[in-house]
């Protein structure tokens, strides 16, 4: 009996076999383009064809002061957006988990931002933010909060915040639904036992729900950070990186300076730098998250 149990969780040939199909598929389709991109980063590939220029792309990038500012700006933007997504997502999941009449309908109603093509959703926000025509400015003027039209995207700080809000809007439904599914998977007897012991709702939430869904929170935190880092269309449609670079994150900069003008060498170098930065960041991030995970499952 014991032998069988032991062999259940020991590494087996089976583990590799189960992963093989996915791994082979990815290698077949993605491996070559990825390798090609890394190779391109050492060239000046563009409209003119290409020749190898070694680390020149990287040197030019790292040396520019603007680039360093862009990196910092990207991390700040990302930090606020991801935090808001996780927090609002968690609150939303709690709200939708509650046994209230109409919750089926609410769960469907939060889907649209996730389902609609991002470009279209951003058109909606573009109009919302419009100083003359948008609902926000309209309501602001009617209630007297605003003296007159106010273009949310016309000024540096307000544009920065506005793009974050739009990005949170896009990302929150997915986070909410994933958290909701996780909450649905928590065994009911755990709650019943605590209820019988007289635990309050807050107590049940913090001591049972949160620890139980922690693996999902960790995964969403990591993935959300990576997606937000590469969040392109949202900023592009709202401001194209303006005004005067106030909302230019790394991915916007990559597109403007490189991909938009067909400078593939430069674009590839930037993509590689983004990947390296993200990897370093993800490593730190995961270390912190795993430490929290340990605390939660022990505490």
């Amino acid at each position: 009996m014991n032998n069988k149990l032991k062999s259940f969780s020991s590494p087996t040939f089976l583990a590799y076999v189960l992963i093989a199909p996915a791994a082979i598929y990815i290698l077949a389709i993605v491996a070559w383009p990825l390798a090609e991109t890394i190779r391109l980063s050492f060239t000046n590939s563009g409209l003119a064809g290409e020749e190898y220029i070694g680390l020149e792309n990287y040197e030019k990038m790292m040396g520019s002061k603007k680039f360093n500012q862009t990196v910092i700006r990207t991390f700040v933007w990302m930090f606020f957006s991801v935090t808001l997504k996780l927090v609002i997502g968690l609150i939303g999941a709690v709200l939708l988990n509650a046994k209230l009449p109409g919750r089926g309908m609410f769960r469907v109603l939060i889907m649209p931002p996730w389902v609609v093509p991002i470009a279209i959703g951003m058109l909606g926000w573009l109009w919302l933010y419009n100083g003359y025509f948008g609902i926000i400015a309209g309501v602001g003027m009617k209630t007297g909060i605003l003296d007159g039209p106010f273009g949310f995207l016309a000024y540096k700080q307000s544009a920065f915040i506005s793009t974050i809000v739009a990005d949170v809007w896009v990302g929150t439904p997915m986070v909410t639904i994933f958290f909701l599914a996780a909450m649905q998977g928590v065994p009911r007897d755990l709650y019943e036992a605590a209820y019988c012991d007289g635990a309050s709702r807050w107590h049940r939430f913090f001591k049972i729900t949160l620890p139980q869904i922690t693996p999902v929170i960790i995964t969403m935190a990591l993935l959300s950070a990576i997606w937000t880092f590469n969040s392109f269309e949202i900023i592009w449609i709202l401001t194209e990186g303006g005004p005067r670079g106030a909302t230019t994150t790394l991915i916007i900069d990559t597109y403007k300076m490189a991909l938009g003008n067909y400078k593939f060498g430069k674009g590839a170098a930037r993509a590689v730098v983004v990947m390296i930065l993200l990897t370093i960041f993800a490593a730190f991030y995961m270390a912190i998250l795993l430490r929290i995970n340990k605390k939660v499952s022990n505490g």
Partner: protein
Amino acid sequence: MDKYNLFEKILLYLGILIFMTFILLPFVEMFYASLRPLDHLFRSPYQFFSDDLSFWAYGEMWNTVPMLGRYIFNSFFLATSVTVITILFVIPAAYSYARFNFTGKNSSLYLLLAINMFSGAVLLIPLYKLLRTLGLLNSYQAMIVPGVAFLIPTSIWLLKSYFEKIPIDLEEAAFVDGASRIQILRHIITPLSTPGLVVVSLYIFIGAYAQQFLFAITFNSKKEYMPIPAGLYEFIGYQTIKWNEMMAASLVGIAPVLIIFIFLQKYLVEGLTAGAVKN
């Protein structure tokens, strides 16, 4: 335990109202834009009612873009194909990562993530060359094959976290009783992780829906195969954009997906069967 007092109920509904307003506000703008005539789309300050509102755009859009119905079908077909294929690759892999330890486990997991750290736009030209070599251009495959490849990595991560939540005792019990691991995967894990499965399938579906545009534009030239986002571009003229019709088309385009989710959301069932863990 499930009864809320009045105060709690009010608080909850208020929270939901605020949340819903945030989520649906841009759609209000989009909906109104679809109801107004093209030469007076916008008003300042904002007006909720005006006398020239009509559903004209919803009819006209089928004339402006005659293949719109086909595009909606294509989007649906492509996303479904990608979802089915991806899920088949992902379930075994996610299970393996969730349950087993083996050399290369962690590094391969992060390698998967690394793939997502490259945004699609950078890889476009090399991908084009690859697909051309494989002879897959200008077909449904042109959009399905890369779509699956880019959705597998994150789907593995997501599904893995749901598999990790299932107590291992259940599987061990079955294993001791003589079930093979594949049987365990099919008969125990899959049903118990239904909420997770549903949600990851939905994620893949929507992800496929979203990334269609880039692949469709670059790898496909045949109008018959184009999905909705490419079709929406046809509302953009040389100097005018038919915003009202475009918004109408977008709203109509996402309806099928929402309908699917209405059916799916009852599969977000609650909890594991009570008492299943008693040995």
